[in-house]
């Protein structure tokens, strides 16, 4: 019995020990889970920090994003302008100007001022544009930014031209046209140069006028020979030939320009009206036989372009045109 009771005592003590151990285990278990819970509470904080830092990391280019946005909105303005969507183009150029101003203020650079000047030029803010392009030159262009230097030079010339400083502007156009290897730069310089030369020619009479027109034609021909596939150069040639009253050649060059493509809807329409003008002028000038020959050739083009008739391009407003004629 003693033994039994003694054993019982031992068993009781063992049981107590077991219970204590169980309690301890339970307590430890609770402790772990508390720690785990505490660590889990931290996880959202870590995730938040990581997310924030990721956001920070990805938003770091914000320092250069004003320049990026300025370029984006400027390009958008050009696209709208080429499609004859003036309101959208003006709005885009305004936004490009805002972004370029912010960039020039926070991180002034040659390109920031160049963009500012380009937007101002498109918004016809000539004086401001002149100042911006001069600022661009004061910051200087780095190696690889030759295109930007040439554009800034042309922009400056263009604003000077609008501010009636026509002689220095013409010199810059001629110089850039002569030296630039970039088609986009040359195209802009060629248009400005041709317009300036034609303006001078219109102010003169006789031989002086003919001489200026011959120089303008020579330049346009040189450009066309250099880059035969550029529709815009054929357009320029057609325009100069029209001043020289050579309507047959002017018509041929305008056809080439139309076929090769033109950069803007506005220029495309102007070229079409040049074609119509050549047709109308030749109708009055050519002898009957020659006229018939030209007319049959002309009508083949008209058919190809789906014009409504010999004098009405397809884009012409039907109602207004009918009432007008």
């Amino acid at each position: 019995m003693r033994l039994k009771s003694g054993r019982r005592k031992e068993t009781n003590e063992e049981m107590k020990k077991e219970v204590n151990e169980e309690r301890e285990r339970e307590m430890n278990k609770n402790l772990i889970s508390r720690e785990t819970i505490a660590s889990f509470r931290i996880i959202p904080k870590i995730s938040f920090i990581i997310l924030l830092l990721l956001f920070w990391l990805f938003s770091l280019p914000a320092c250069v994003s004003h320049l990026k946005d300025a370029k984006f909105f400027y390009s958008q303005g050009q696209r709208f302008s080429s499609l004859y969507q003036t309101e959208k183009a003006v709005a885009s150029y305004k936004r490009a100007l805002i972004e370029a101003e912010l960039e020039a203020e926070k991180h002034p650079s040659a390109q920031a001022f160049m963009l500012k000047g380009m937007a101002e030029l498109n918004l016809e803010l000539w004086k401001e544009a002149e100042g911006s392009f001069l600022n661009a030159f004061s910051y200087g262009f780095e190696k690889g930014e030759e295109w930007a230097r040439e554009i800034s030079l042309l922009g400056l010339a263009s604003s000077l031209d609008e501010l009636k400083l026509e002689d220095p502007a013409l010199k810059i156009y001629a110089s850039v046209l002569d030296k630039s290897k970039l088609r986009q730069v040359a195209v802009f310089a060629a248009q400005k140069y041709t317009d300036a030369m034609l303006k001078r020619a219109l102010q003169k009479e006789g031989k002086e006028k003919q001489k200026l027109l011959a120089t303008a034609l020579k330049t346009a021909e040189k450009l066309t020979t250099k880059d035969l596939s550029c529709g815009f150069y054929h357009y320029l040639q057609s325009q100069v030939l029209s001043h020289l009253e050579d309507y047959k050649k002017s018509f041929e060059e305008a056809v080439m320009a139309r076929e090769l493509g033109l950069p803007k809807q506005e220029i495309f329409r102007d070229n079409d009206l040049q074609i119509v003008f050549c047709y109308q002028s030749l109708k009055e000038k050519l002898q009957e036989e020659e006229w018939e020959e030209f007319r049959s050739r002309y009508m083949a083009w008209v058919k190809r372009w789906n014009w409504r008739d010999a004098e009405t391009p397809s884009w012409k407003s039907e109602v207004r045109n009918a009432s007008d004629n």
Partner: protein
Amino acid sequence: MKKMTLEKIVKKGISFLSKIFPVKSYLYFPLLSTAIFWGIRRATEWKKKILSWQVYLDPELIEEKPAEFVLNFFKKSSSLSQVYEAEIMSNDKEALREAFNRLYPIIGLEDPFLSALFYEELESKDFRNIVKEFDEEVSRAKRDIEALEGKSRLLEGLKSVAEEAASLSVDLMSNEEVQEVVANEIKKWTKEGN
């Protein structure tokens, strides 16, 4: 100079992290050094890309037209030839060219913006009024056009710290150098009893 500015940014970062994450300071170093190092690299790459994105000036149409083209424009339109009969008869080239410069984009080229702007005058064939009001009306309309709305400004405030880090010209700094600055700043911050 470069390091000083970067130090300031690191300080800002530490202070920011200490508020949200006060106990686990051992995380500041990896988080800050990685973010700043890659941030600088990323911004430099972006800057290169943006600077090499070329934009050009578009050519316009040739504005200077021959006198015959101008005269033809008025003669071939019955409504224009009626209104400008006197100028055509007297061969007033100057007056015709001035009117042509305003009317050609609207009647000749059918510019949608200008046609809408002078819709009433076109309907009533009041061409002289178009010529008279052209400059003022066009510049007023262009002035009134608002700039396009850009992206949301909601997160602009949050970007300011990031902008500061990225605007540093520290693209030549190595990862070790960035880490050194971050580590030193964290040490200083810890010594100050944080």
